[in-house]
């Protein structure tokens, strides 16, 4: 049977978060967002911190924030290996602001290149999180 759904697996290091079939999933690739429909060409891509949109019947039914990771696309399935994933509605904006602050402090305090790069990545994640909530709030109001 030809399925019109794409099997979407979202896994974080700690556990399997999502494993279900959807109409379409839009993934924040590091070189631009891409939508995955059934029978997509096989592809492996890296992700930037951003939002995964899950579409059912043409509307977004779920939005998940991922802090970077990898996506593997085959004609039947999409597997996302996320370093950190959290539903957009569960993000606490104050906690994220704190996180951004600590990251910025770590960046200032960093004395090696690796530490600086880590802090920079952390800042990027926190900023992307804030941007994602801001955008969502904009839609809601």
């Amino acid at each position, binding site marked *: 049977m030809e399925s019109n759904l794409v099997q979407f*697996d979202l*896994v*974080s*290091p*700690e*556990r*399997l978060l999502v494993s279900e079939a959807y109409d379409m999933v839009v993934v924040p*690739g*590091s*070189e631009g967002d*891409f939508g995955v429909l059934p029978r997509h*060409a*096989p*592809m*492996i*891509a*890296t992700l930037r911190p951003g939002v995964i949109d899950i579409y059912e019947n043409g509307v977004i039914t779920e939005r998940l924030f991922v802090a970077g990771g*990898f996506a*593997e696309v*085959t004609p039947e399935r999409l*597997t996302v*290996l996320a*370093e950190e994933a959290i539903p957009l509605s569960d993000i606490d904006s104050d906690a994220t602001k704190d996180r951004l602050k600590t990251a910025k402090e770590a960046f200032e305090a960093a004395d090696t290149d*690796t530490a600086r790069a880590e802090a920079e990545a952390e800042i990027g994640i926190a900023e992307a999180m804030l941007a994602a909530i801001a955008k969502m709030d904009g839609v809601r109001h």
Partner: protein
Amino acid sequence: MANLKDLRVRISSVKSTRKITSAMKMVAASKLRRAQSAAEAARPYAERMERMVGSLAGSLPQGAPGPALLSGNGNDRVHLVVLVTSDRGLCGGFNSYAVRNAKQFLNEKLAQGKEVKILCVGRKGREQLKREYGAYILETFEGMGRKGMNYGDALDVAGRVTKLFNENSFDVATLIYNRFKSAISQIPTRHQLIPFLFDAASEEAGDPALRSMYEFEPSEEEILEKLLPRNLATQVFRALLESFASEQGARMTAMDNATRNAGDMLNALTLRYNRTRQANITKELIEIISGAEAL
């Protein structure tokens, strides 16, 4: 009469030991359940990650060397052993199994004239290795999983391994840990981290025709560069979780045995106590009776 008192003291001490061991057993059992489900929950990520590395490596042009983390630096002279054990004892042979396996590996490599270096995760492994191999130990990580194992711990260890590799201080890295099979059985396992080994699991993932069709965004090299350190951390994380679950299983079994032994001992001691008490009473009676008869 002194004998009776000694027995009473011993009985009460064995009783309190039994209480302690049975409490430890309970604690280990509840931790085991959590650790086991954590280890099982982390498996999909590690497996998919390995599969992805497999498909990426498979689609690299034939003969291309690829990144060093994937194919190694071509040498086989200095071996790094990452030994995962627990921080605390009282878990039966758990640490000894892993250490024995590590010693065997180290001796093998030393006999072949190779150089070895050791990273210890967990205090117990270091304690057992330091007399014979103390000179090879680079660093010890402690306090892993005190508040439940998290990915950050694995990142620390993996970061250290990557750093050492980039400094060219070793050629081949091997991870040694106890794999969790069941609460009563843990298997000391060796897992080669660098260079990446294609095992059967990644071989059978996806047919080769499909594998060569992959598109990459950005380029393969860039993805591999990001994916490989990540994969390293994931494999370490998996080892930590497996080891943690194994530790709880081993402790539970050890404490169960200890509780049972304490119970047996208590029975034997109580029997002896009662016999001695009876003998004493009989003796006293005989003394009284024979005293009365003498009058």
